């Protein structure tokens, strides 16, 4: 998800050129910008809202808001952190404002056919416990730990996306990691 430093720099430069064209109303440039950030935006939105439908609504709203506010974007900075901050703030407000549709999280880790029933049951219980622990985290902590551990972003990048300091990011990461490790350790005994 996160490329090399060179390709990141190229993306930043390219993003700025695209933003310039979007300011003039260039639909093709806007489409490229959307394609470039859509996958990660959907993942972040899902972490925030917990289900796919709400997450897709949020992503659409964030991209339209970004277009409305594109004139306020400081082109000396990178587009991604600006956009993700907008997405996350919109998502946190949406969480507060509307009752979310409850849905069962999708299963990602399917047991192999060779596993015996006991292993499968243990595995399922562990997964459910972990999912519950992850869902119980405050939204910012859940985002921080996922962005750091899964997406491979640095604390500085996460801080810029969330509009908070690096120290606060580290604190959220620490708290989230403790809670998740605790959930795993409890099951393992």
């Amino acid at each position, binding site marked *: 998800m996160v490329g090399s430093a060179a390709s990141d720099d190229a993306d930043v430069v390219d993003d700025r050129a695209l933003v310039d064209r*979007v*300011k*003039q*109303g*260039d*639909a093709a440039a*806007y*489409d490229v910008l*959307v*394609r470039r950030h*859509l*996958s990660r935006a*959907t*993942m972040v939105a*899902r*972490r925030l809202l917990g289900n*796919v439908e709400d997450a*897709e609504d949020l*992503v*659409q709203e964030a*991209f*339209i808001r970004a*277009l*409305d506010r594109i004139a306020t974007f400081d082109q000396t900075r990178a587009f991604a952190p600006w956009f993700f901050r907008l997405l996350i703030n919109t998502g946190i407000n949406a969480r507060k404002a509307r009752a979310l549709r409850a849905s069962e*999280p*999708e*299963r*990602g*880790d399917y047991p192999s056919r060779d596993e015996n029933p006991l292993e499968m049951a243990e595995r399922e219980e562990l*997964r459910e416990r*972990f*999912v519950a622990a*992850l869902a119980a985290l405050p939204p910012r902590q859940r985002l921080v*730990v*996922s962005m*750091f*551990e*899964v997406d*491979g972003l*640095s*604390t500085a990048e996460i801080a810029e996306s969330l509009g908070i300091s690096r*120290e606060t990011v*580290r*604190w959220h*990461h*620490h708290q989230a*990691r*403790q809670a*998740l*490790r605790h959930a*795993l350790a409890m099951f393992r005994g």
Partner: protein
Amino acid sequence: MNEERGVVSLSEPERDPHLAHAIRAAEGPAASMARLELLRARIAAAAVAALEARRDRAWWEWMARWARTEVALAAAATLFAAVLGGATLIGRGEIGSDTAFASAAAQSIGGAPLDSVVTRALAGGASSEQVMNALVGPPSGEWLLTQAVER
């Protein structure tokens, strides 16, 4: 290790591959390409009006920027023409011929028709503005007050 003791490290934390795997499994698979493509199409459709408005705005902004330049150029050209025109008139001796119309008019007292007065004044070197001032009064209107006081 600091984290084991519950202290937040000041340096960049180390990544935990086991935790990453567990989070990935809990989050489920990423959205499929088909689903992302549908979402992209939805976003593109929702953005049409805003992009169109932005194109119109960009055109007007371009016009406004050029209009400002054009006005400045026109003002400079007018000023230049006025200076150049004034110098030409002085060169031809039109300035200072304020008396040309007065002398022509004085000579015409006695019932000469107005058009012959104008013709003679112009032939005598009066400018068209001086002729107009003499016929209908200067633009300031002070001449009218002067006339009233004299009576």
